[in-house]
């Protein structure tokens, strides 16, 4: 059940000049965290809209969740200026996460792009098996969570667009290489739309079930205002489903990219 609550900031680490890692105390709510679900955070009284941020990890025993975010505009800038001990207004957990259960015995492939990496890390962490993970970033300074990912996946491939770190090139090039080499039971992806689209096409081509996590601008975050529309193929043609309520994770073959 979605709740609106106050969360205290327990820990802050700056992963780069523009990327921040927060640990929030959320009490019982931590039990409802799941990979792909997100929280909507109020970023100052002067901003009407809350900002959706994916849950990157959760510790139900400690009552904490972890979020990682990048400064993109005024709201995330405000968030980055908050201090340990400060209180955030948080709505969540919101949305339907990745369906990680019921996979066949084959390993899963996790595909992350940029700031889409946190929920993918969380999903991979919660998926048993010899799973692989490909994560792409703009450049070396944008790479996040590499250490964490190494602990929870079989093979981790880090790519950068400019070759300043890891493999030079797009994640989807690596994904294709892996798909040629090996059989996967499922693909899970989060990142820029172009990356998701290319990943979805590969998944279709190789007949692998694929789930993607979508982004859209939000109003209410609870499914009431219908602003966070995404085009989904329905039985009577295209219709708009809603990222906050029906998503953010969708079956890739249903998404009209």
């Amino acid at each position, binding site marked *: 059940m979605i709740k*609106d609550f106050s969360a205290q900031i327990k820990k802050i680490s700056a992963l780069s000049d523009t990327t921040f890692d927060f640990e929030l105390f959320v009490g019982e709510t931590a039990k409802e965290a799941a990979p792909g679900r997100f929280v909507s955070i109020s970023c100052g009284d002067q901003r009407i*809209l809350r900002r959706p941020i994916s849950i990157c990890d959760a510790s139900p025993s400690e009552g904490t969740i972890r979020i990682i975010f990048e400064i993109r505009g005024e709201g995330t800038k405000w968030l980055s200026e908050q201090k340990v001990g400060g209180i955030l207004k948080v709505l969540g957990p919101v949305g339907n996460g990745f369906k990680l259960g019921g996979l066949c015995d084959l390993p899963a492939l996790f595909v992350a792009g940029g700031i889409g990496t946190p929920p993918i890390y969380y999903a991979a962490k919660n998926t048993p098996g010899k799973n692989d993970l490909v994560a792409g970033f703009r450049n070396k300074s944008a790479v996040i969570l590499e250490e964490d990912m190494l602990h929870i996946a079989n093979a981790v491939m880090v790519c950068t667009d400019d070759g300043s770190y890891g493999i030079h090139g797009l994640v989807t090039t690596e994904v294709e290489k892996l798909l040629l080499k090996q059989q996967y039971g499922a693909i899970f992806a989060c990142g820029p739309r172009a990356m998701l689209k290319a990943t979805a096409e590969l998944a279709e081509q190789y007949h692998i079930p694929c789930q993607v996590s979508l982004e*859209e601008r939000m109003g*209410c975050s609870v499914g009431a*205002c219908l*602003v966070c529309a995404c085009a989904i193929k329905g039985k009577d043609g295209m219709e708009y489903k809603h990222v906050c*309520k029906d998503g953010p994770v969708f079956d890739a073959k249903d998404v009209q990219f």
Partner: protein
Amino acid sequence: MKPTMNVEFCGVEFKNPVLTASGTFGFGREYSSFYDLSELGGICIKGITPKKRIGNPPPRIAETPMGILNSVGLQNPGIDAFISEELPFLKQFDTRVIANISGNTVSEYCEMAEKISDSQVDLIEMNISCPNVKAGGMAFGTSSSMVFDVVSETKKYAKKPLVVKLSPNVTDITEIAVAAENAGASGLSLINTILGMRIDIKTKRPILHQNTGGLSGPAVLPIAIRMVYQVKKAVKIPLIGMGGISCGNDAVEMMLAGASLVSVGTACFSNPMAPIEVRDGIQKYLEDCKRSSVHDLCGGLIEY
């Protein structure tokens, strides 16, 4: 003694003057996990149309200083699906249900008014002011002769009180208000959203896929209060005031200006409890100034 909060509006009794604004509250399901919907004076549903509408492509929302723009474009399952699948849920609660209807043509409004009158809704709100659809919508609401025509026709089919929702995108809102009153409106609600635009300076594209959208939220409060004040002086039928209300004091201002009931919309996005807090805030104001009833507020303004 607690002040009495109930309000009679167009012959319908409301337990308190706070409604949720159309389009910001869906059909109530989502917010029912935050509080008991029976706490509300009433719920105004997402605008419905004769047939299902898929709405506009995203992005459908943009932020502005203390406001938002939306361009949902009346996405809704259609009147029949509303009556069969959503209304029974709403009728579980001890609160009033207001059906917000939108048509492309006069006959669509009539058809809907007739159909919805036979359902269990308590009031009909005619949306002739949606800035986010091409045909109908705002076009009807910006000319007093068209308002007169569409309202007087629809009135013939409405067997429940008919509230006309006015557009703020007009030179003189009193002219439109008077036209609606003369055509037989039981009450008026105002304001719908104000047409606005934001541009993403990185991509040079409008933020909204429709280019423009409707402005709501605190930013519009002073405009809404002015319009309610003007309309109150121009007509005798009662008013539902909305536009930017986010706390009890805002609602008190709106009622002093002339509203009998108030609606809370965009404020729910920042704070899901906003309608309840607005209700409690009105009550606290009445207590603080030792008023026995919320009736004392409507039109209580002392003009210069």
